[in-house]
């Protein structure tokens, strides 16, 4: 697994993905008095997933603000506050509810700079957890990143490790544009190493999570650890899988993806979101439109969520999104 250059030489410690998000927010709030957090139950409750636990105690109720259940106001308020000098972080409790604020996000925040002829700066982050696996069914378990990738003016970040979550969130808070930061519910409790020192992971830079020469797997979010597990299994059969994690979908690091596919000649794109009009289609098009096309030894394959709402029953829920078996089969098929 490759690492950010600044990570390799430093002492590390293990923290959870949720703690990484919290550390990023807290460090930025200590560094910059303009940064604040608001959302539903982010204060004393500590957020529905405990991400902001302890923050109100450190920063007080002015900078860690509980809001009423008003998603459009939360996101639009972030835009208005950003436009006038603050650097707000707005938490939407489940990414599924972000569509309640879609006008404020997509028609307002995303477009202000362009509509106003380049004069506006809208430095805001909307954090929201996505993904299935919690049994909360169709309105609490979706992965809707493609919606936000389709709205020019937004940046879209989907971190897969504690290291990336912390570094990318710090970069997002420092960015002068609206950033949709999609956290992975099932990864909140997973631990991983982060450096002791301050670091930032720049937006728009993919990470090769595992090197390999036979097949490229492009994947993000919760699917990254699943694909790494599959890659470890396949290695036993001598199949070397390269796992490329774009980390930010907008802006997309096309070069790293294309370079990897040029090398391997085979690619599987894996995402939890439903397949139709999913971002995997965009990645496939990026590859097909590039020089990598001439290096392809097999068709581009996608392994994605089926085009169904997330069901309640655990067996059905698990089957609705990519499984290690489906990913493994796709890779083996390409090599057959």
């Amino acid at each position, binding site marked *: 697994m490759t690492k950010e250059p600044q990570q390799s030489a430093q002492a590390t410690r293990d923290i959870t993905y949720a703690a990484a998000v919290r550390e990023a927010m807290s460090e930025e709030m200590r560094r910059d008095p303009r940064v604040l957090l608001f959302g539903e139950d982010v204060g004393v409750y500590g957020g529905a997933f405990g991400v902001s636990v302890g923050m109100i105690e450190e920063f007080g109720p002015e900078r860690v*603000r509980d809001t009423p259940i008003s998603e459009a106001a939360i996101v639009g308020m972030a835009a208005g506050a950003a436009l006038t000098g603050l650097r707000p972080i707005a938490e939407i409790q489940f990414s599924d509810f972000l569509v309640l604020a879609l006008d404020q996000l997509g028609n307002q925040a995303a477009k202000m700079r362009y509509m106003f002829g380049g004069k506006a700066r809208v430095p805001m982050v909307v954090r929201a957890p996505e993904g299935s696996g919690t049994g909360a069914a169709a309105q609490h378990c979706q992965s809707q990143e493609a919606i936000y990738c389709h709205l020019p003016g937004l940046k879209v970040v989907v971190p897969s490790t504690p290291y990336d979550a912390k570094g990318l969130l710090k970069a997002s808070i420092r960015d002068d544009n609206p950033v949709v930061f999609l956290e992975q519910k099932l990864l909140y409790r997973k631990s991983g190493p982060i450096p002791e020192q301050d670091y930032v992971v720049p937006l728009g830079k993919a990470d090769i999570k595992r090197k390999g020469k036979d097949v490229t797997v492009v994947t993000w979010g919760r699917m990254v650890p699943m694909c790494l597990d599959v890659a470890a299994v396949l290695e036993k059969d001598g199949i070397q899988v390269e796992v490329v994690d774009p980390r930010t979908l907008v802006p997309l690091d096309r070069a790293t993806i294309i370079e990897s596919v040029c090398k391997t000649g085979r690619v599987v794109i894996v995402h939890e979101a439903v397949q139709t009009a999913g971002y995997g289609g965009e990645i496939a098009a990026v590859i097909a439109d590039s020089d990598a096309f001439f290096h392809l030894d097999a068709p581009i394959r996608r392994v994605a969520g089926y085009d169904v709402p997330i069901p309640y029953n655990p067996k059905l829920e698990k089957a609705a999104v990519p499984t290690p078996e489906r990913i493994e089969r796709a890779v083996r098929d390409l090599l057959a």
Partner: protein
Amino acid sequence: MESAMRKLSPAPESAAALPREQLGRMYLQMLQTRAFEEKVAHFFSRGMIHGTTHLYIGEEATAIGAIAALEPDDLITSTHRGHGHTIAKGIDLNAMMAELFGRRDGSCKGKGGSMHIADLDKGNLGANGVVGGGLPIAIGAALSLQMTKSSQVVICFFGDGAMNEGTFHESVNLASVWKLPVIFVCENNQYGMSMSVKRSTNLDDLSERARAYGIPGKRVDGNDVLAVYEAVREAKAFARTGGPSLIVAQTYRFQGHSKSDANKYRTKEEIAAWRAKDPIPRFRKYLAENGAFSDAELVALEAQAKEQIEEAVRFATASPEPDLETLLTDVYAE
């Protein structure tokens, strides 16, 4: 409602005591707005201004009266019918007209047009193409002011149509809970496109809704520029310590909603009755009778406004089209 209205602090001075210079400026801005809109209609009908237009003719007293009560560094959010707010907030008329023509020297480089004019340097946080879209943005700006302990306030303009959007409920409630320094000014021009407020709302006085949010509410004659001024001045004094309030300005758009409007949903008699309440002659009469303005001075202001708009048209039509290279810029800040 009575008790809610009493919560507004009494006016320390009446609108009539306004300096003569300010009264003259208010009259000039009303005239500029009217002349601007008439020019827009003129060039629109000739195909020289494209897209769509939402004219503010008939409603000038509301924007100009409200913004006259602000300091220059106070903030506003505007609407799709926002030319009056934009002029009252002090935009460069040349750049504004150039924006309507979609030209390079437009206030948004020709990228925004009528519905997205903003003038951030002057505290205008932007018009809005979405009904109710500006309300959450206004409370965000008010949050900035509160967090930085500023004495500035925000006026959030919206129409009667926006009062039935969810963002109205979410934003007014949140502003009330946090006591944000924002003044919600509803321009009740009686119609959301063709939908009469009588058919969209089961209330005679929309300001009664304020009570549901625990904030003061007041209905004013939106065609009386001094009445609007007075109400906003009171609301502003309240905003700094007490938080938000709601003002509903009763007014009327003389023109249709936009270019496609054949006025089938309202009668000639109704339009004529409101035209008789035209805010501009009404204020002129006041100034002539009470404001110590001679007829010659008023005529001079009228000529000045016309000439300024003619100059804006000359500037706009002389401004080049934007370069195609600008198409892809300004999407993201570096």
